[in-house]
């Protein structure tokens, strides 16, 4: 008898329905899996055999053929185990029930228990779009599905539980739908702006950067607190909306990074890959195209510490995703587009030895070394970093004079307001923040008075700003004006924007 069980496999972030057809025939005992299965799926037969035996069922000593349809889609991972086992049991008449309309996901352990799998959330979201409603999932992963409305999720711990549920002996109670907003109310971050002492300029620059969605680069000697400041970035960013959280969780789910206790990512991700990271690990790729760091940081912060130390090619690969907010990775096995809407935050020393411009230490670098160090970050990449701010250590004696600093929460409240202004301004455009403005939008939304123009002109002449810095300064000035609640950009806004430049 042929039995059919439904399951899913993932290509990128979209789930593809897979129908597992199992047939038990007479003949020499064998277990064949056909239908473009990868190694993990081929190995499933050993897991399924032991799991069935150790669950007190019988593995038929007959010729068993399992077909994974459609046969032209490459199936990967161990999530198909459960569907294979259930199909086999039904085909050998050890299970009598209707398997139609139920999606089975889960990896089997040899003792018959179910283990967690990667990519539950994107699969469920795709399956619901395609009309499926019932899911049987490993209990360890089930929380990921608990925020998706319209899904009836049965969390199971072993093959036996699944069998008893399907045959109606001991039905599993479906998972309750959880409310996202309850999670976001009491977010506790490890970092907080109030813990950063001094650094008023850098903090102000960070607030502007977050408010306008600008990428930011910290320039400063080692040990001045660049990393600490960067870690505060997510704490002042607006709370993630449910849609944003789902999108980000989908990507983390594919890599298996979602915490079992939460089931969803409700804080903005902060990814800081080491500078030895390969280009593929940042952009995404591999034989089975997996998301890279830039996608894992989607809706959050990608922090590149010691930016000039990164491979040049790796940095250049960031240019397109920074512009478009998505990254398309093409491999022989297929082309996948992952979202990559990140705020880039970089840090670097002023020169290789770190002492350039320091009043009390001597820089030992040659001019050629400094030029080489700075040229690691190319002009086109710098063009995408609107704010470059210097971070320098303040003496301890001066630190104690500083009054208690603002908390991240206070700053976040202000940021939310500025973001609202931008949403209103760009409601007819495809962009959300000031940083995303193109030349046409700059002309439309950033009208400069005569006075501003002359300030900008003299700043160019005196301070040797590069021509490409112009639109950056204007965009930042627009955000500063928004923060001040001013409809027009005034000279002081331009002047402040000018002070956040290094190159």
């Amino acid at each position: 008898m042929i039995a059919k069980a439904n399951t899913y496999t993932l290509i990128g972030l979209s789930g593809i329905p897979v129908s597992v057809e199992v047939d038990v025939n007479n003949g020499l005992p064998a277990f064949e899996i056909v239908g473009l299965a990868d190694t993990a799926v081929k190995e499933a037969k050993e897991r399924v055999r032991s799991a069935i035996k150790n669950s007190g069922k019988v593995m038929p000593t007959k010729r068993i053929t399992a077909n994974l349809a459609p046969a032209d889609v490459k199936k990967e991972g161990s999530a198909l185990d459960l569907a294979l086992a259930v199909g086999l049991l039904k085909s050998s008449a050890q299970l009598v029930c209707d398997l139609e309309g139920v999606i089975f996901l889960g990896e089997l352990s040899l003792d018959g228990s179910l283990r967690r799998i990667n990519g539950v959330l994107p699969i469920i979201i795709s399956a619901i779009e395609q009309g499926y409603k019932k899911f049987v999932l490993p209990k360890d992963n089930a929380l990921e599905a608990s925020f998706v409305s319209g899904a009836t999720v049965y969390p199971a711990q072993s093959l036996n539980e699944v069998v008893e549920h399907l045959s109606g002996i001991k039905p599993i109670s479906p998972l309750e739908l959880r409310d996202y907003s309850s999670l976001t109310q009491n977010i506790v971050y490890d970092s907080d702006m109030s813990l950063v002492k001094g650094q008023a300029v850098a903090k102000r620059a960070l607030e502007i950067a977050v408010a306008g969605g600008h990428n930011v680069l910290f320039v400063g000697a080692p040990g001045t607190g660049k990393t600490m400041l960067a870690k505060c970035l997510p704490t002042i960013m607006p709370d993630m909306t449910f849609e944003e959280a789902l999108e980000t969780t989908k990507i983390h789910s594919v890599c298996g990074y979602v915490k079992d206790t939460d089931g969803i990512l409700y804080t903005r991700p902060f990814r800081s890959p080491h500078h030895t990271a390969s280009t593929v690990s940042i952009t995404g790729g591999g034989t089975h195209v997996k998301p890279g760091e830039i996608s894992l940081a989607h809706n959050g912060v990608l922090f590149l510490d010691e930016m000039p130390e990164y491979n040049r090619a790796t940095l250049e690969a960031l240019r397109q995703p920074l512009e478009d907010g998505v990254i398309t990775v093409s491999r022989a096995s297929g082309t996948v587009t992952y979202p990559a809407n990140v705020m880039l935050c970089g840090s670097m020393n002023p020169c290789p030895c770190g002492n350039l411009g320091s009043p009390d230490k001597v820089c030992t670098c040659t001019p050629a070394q400094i030029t080489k160090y700075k040229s690691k970050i190319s002009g086109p990449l710098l063009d995408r970093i609107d704010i470059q701010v210097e971070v320098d250590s303040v003496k301890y004696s001066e630190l104690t004079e500083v009054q208690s600093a603002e908390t991240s929460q206070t700053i976040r409240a202000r940021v939310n307001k500025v973001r609202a202004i931008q949403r209103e301004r760009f409601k007819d455009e495809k962009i959300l923040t000031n940083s995303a403005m193109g030349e046409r939008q700059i002309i439309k939304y950033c009208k400069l008075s005569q006075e501003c123009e002359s300030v900008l002109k003299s700043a160019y002449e005196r301070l040797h700003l590069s021509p490409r810095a112009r639109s950056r300064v204007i965009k930042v000035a627009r955000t500063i004006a928004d923060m001040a609640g001013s409809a027009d950009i005034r000279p002081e806004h331009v002047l402040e924007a000018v002070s956040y430049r290094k190159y």
Partner: protein
Amino acid sequence: MIKYSNAELVLIWLDSFVGLEYKHKLALFDNLKNCTGIKDFLQKSKDYISSTIGEKEYSTILASANQEYLTFLLENLDKKGIIAVTQFSKDYPKRLMETEIPPLILYAKGNLELLDSECFAIVGSRKSLPSSIAIAKDYAKTLCSHFTIVTGIAEGVDSAVIEQTLFSEGRVISVNAGGFDNVYPKRNQALFDKVVEKGLVLSEYPPETFAQPFMFPVRNRIIAGLSKGVLIANGEIKSGTRYTAEYGFEYGKDVFAIPYGVGVASGAGCNDLIKRGANLTDSPKDILDFYSVKETPEREELSPEEKQVLSALLDGEKHVEKLCLQLKKQTFEILPVLSVLEIKGYVVKSGNVYGLCRKITEEQCN
């Protein structure tokens, strides 16, 4: 093509042998004065050359002792737009001629008239604090309307002085250590081209020569020799700028130096010069007064906020945060004011520390 006299032609020919040292060329100088051509010159100098530099070198010189090689040299100079100003030329600057070891030939590119003008040298080291650069620029800005500014072309003070002078539409001479084909540092090629266009570049070596470390201190004697006075904007105890000052002292030029605080390594050389008798200067006006040049000071209007910030900076450079605390203002109120002052050339930014780069009196702040 420029017309050179016979003696000049032979000198250009002789100077193309970089291996032949200055002292040898100088020893042969008398033979040059009234020779009719290369052959004639060699006839007279044969004994000296072969006895001092050896047969082997002599044979290479001998092999090039023909009209073709000379024509090649001249065409090469002409193609590159270089004029060889020899000691026989009327264009050769007299002040330089009066020094102890004047170059035999000044290879020049640009506006030759500048050689005859009143010159003032501003030099500094490559490793300069932003404040030193700003100060040097302030001097260049004021002095360039009265003098031709002479400097090198290195990064730091030298190139900043050139940029400022060109920006203020002043006259500038940049003396290079190596030949014009090999501008050092390479990244200043664009700046070099600008000087050629609007000022004058000089070198005592033929265009193909690469700059070697020993050429830099030797080059500084030209900077000092050309100028009436020399300003040392900054420099460590062991810095190339010292040579310029030493030559300045030696040639009886007016040496000026900017004072630095105790422990500022990049200014220790200046303080040392002041100890040894250089004129202390902390404002471009000092130099104008020294030469009795009258200038009507331009009055720049300052807003009350700007005055407030300037007076807060009177007792030394300060971190933005300290300024905020002192003036009881927010960062975003202070930063625009500092930017304005930076644009107007009153303060200089080094990281988030701002300091004055111009002499300010308390009256100006009230």
